[in-house]
């Protein structure tokens, strides 16, 4: 996994609450392997009309936001389906950080597994940042994970991130390698548990 320390990039405001993973990646693309280029179909039905033409009013289609690496959105971003491909779509489009007041639990877990930072800010902070970006779309936003700060233009604030997840992103740690260190503990747990809870083993 790629490390995340600090980025300076254009940021796109998506002033909508409850952007769910069905929006981020419509279900019809779920059978695509990641190598097919999921970034192309990120937010497909919001970015494009039924004929495949860009919707010019959608923020990500506006010239200043096309190269965004940061998305700022309303609360409960990434709610809904557990599809990790929604994170692949964001990441492969080029997004490295989503700033929002809250995130779907499963989405936030998936994000961390793939090097995408979910930065939590208060409702009014997200609102303020989105207003600033709408007024000055060329603003370059800096997200510093070491210092846990967001800044850009006149704007500056801190953000929330789970301390464990922060460390994992900073170091690019891989879960499975970490777990392998505890192999003996797992084996011991299993042995005790199978005596204690013999009924938990599937019969048949």
């Amino acid at each position, binding site marked *: 996994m790629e490390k995340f320390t600090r980025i300076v990039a254009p940021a796109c405001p998506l*002033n*909508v*609450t*409850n952007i*769910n993973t*069905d*929006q981020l990646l*419509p*279900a*019809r693309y*779920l*059978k695509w*392997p*990641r190598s097919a280029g999921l970034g192309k179909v990120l937010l497909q*039905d919001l970015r494009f009309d*039924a004929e495949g033409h860009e919707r010019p009013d959608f923020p990500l289609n506006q010239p200043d936001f096309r190269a965004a690496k940061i998305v700022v959105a*309303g*609360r*409960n971003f990434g*709610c*809904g*389906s*557990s*599809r*990790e*491909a929604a*994170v692949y779509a964001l990441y492969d489009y080029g997004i490295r950080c989503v700033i929002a007041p*809250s*995130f*779907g*639990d*499963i989405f936030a*877990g*998936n994000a961390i*597994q*793939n090097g995408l930072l979910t930065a939590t800010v208060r409702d009014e902070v997200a*609102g303020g940042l989105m207003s600033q970006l709408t007024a000055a779309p060329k603003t370059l936003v800096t997200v510093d994970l070491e210092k846990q700060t967001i800044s850009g233009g006149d704007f500056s604030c801190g953000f929330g991130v*789970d*301390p*464990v997840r922060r*460390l994992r992103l900073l170091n690019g740690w891989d*879960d*499975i390698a*970490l*777990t*392998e260190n*505890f192999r003996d*503990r*797992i084996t011991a*747990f*299993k042995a005790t*548990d199978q005596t204690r*809870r*013999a*009924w*938990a*083993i*599937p*019969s*048949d």
Partner: protein
Amino acid sequence: MTEVQTLIDKLWVAHEILRRDDGESLLWVDRHYVHEGSFHAFSRLAERGAAVAEPGFTFGVADHYVPTRGPRDSIGNPEIARMVRQIEENAARHRIKLFGLNDRRQGIVHVVGPEQGLTLPGLLVVCGDSHTSTHGALGAFAFGIGASEVAHVLMTQTIWQRRPKRMRVTVDGKTAPGNAAKDIALTIIGKIGADGATGHAVEFAGSAIRALSIEGRLTLCNMSIEAGARCGMVAPDATTFDYVKGRPFAPKGTALEQAFDAWSRLKTDDGAEFEREVCFDADAIAPIVTWGTSPQHALPIDASVPNPAGETDPARANELREAIDYMGLRPGQKLTEVAIDRAFIGSCTNARIEDLRAAAAVLAGRISKVPGLVSPGSSLVKRQAEEEGLDRIFRDSGLEWGESGCSMCVGINGDLVAPGERCASTTNRNFRGRQGPGARTHLMSPVMVAAAAVAGHLSDVRSLMAPRKV
């Protein structure tokens, strides 16, 4: 042990292998379900040349992509056929038991797990599907995970988690006839919001929950993710024990006695504390439909589409406006005046035998004004429904009797709601485009879908519930 604990705590502690100083715990996984969509995780294993650590605790199903209309022996779309073939190949390669397309036990993973006695009280259950919360109905700690975590569970039979906050939702009283678990679930979500339970494990308690059958509890826990909950659960009781006993993979003999003994302790101790408590009065719960594009857009059937002009919060007004626009409705429009184009009865939320019986009781001797599909939750549910003659009732009313799978809930097997069409649906998500690009979904219980089908518009099932001869 003298410390009082919640059910959530008891389940957590029983699975905790270790806790790191940073607060993350490594948990033992008792059951891991995989499906066609788990292919990303299997690819991860292949890249690493890794094996499945515990194939005996891993079970596969073909549900997301399987055809649910017409013959199943050959799948026309090669991409969809490949998805079904892939899970068969991965299961065979890793010696995972699979309920595949042609298995008589095939069905939706969240129906098959409990039905087969694989999901039990006291277990930790994961699956790469957000509706894994369903399994909590039996008193299990069950939650959805992403592909990377699926790969981790396959390779280690464990998962890293931070202990969730605890929330109790108590529903006391007696629901009126015509009201179902779905109405309770949508009432809760409508009240606390689509992120009302984010970061929390939820225990459902109270007399109205106790009175629910296991099927009803499965519906309720299924929908807990739509309030953002990490998981939902109901403490096991006599209803649970009766349900589990005799199922194919459930413990038997002495093991079952030991299990009953252990399960009887799986309840929240008196005085145990929750970070959050919410209470509802079951008597006040009416049949609910959703009008918008989030499950929180849920209202009693006798209500009207909200008016954004009456909202003081501009963000909320904007959300309402966009939802009303997408759904093709008018502010203030009576919900009972919303005409539908299609009906769907199916999905992991509401396609168990009890759901089909309830819908059939409303449809018996009546004709649906719109086309519709009934897709049973599992192939065994299908067979039982046919033995009871329910398939004939659905067919006679004009609905199509289909096969089991995720079907029109997510539409990835090709069963879609057409752009602009409005569907009364027993499913779990009314998101934009969920049932197909441009599709408009109204969520409701099986009897409410039946009532809408008969009326041709959203309708109060209670008007159809008077005793009658059919």
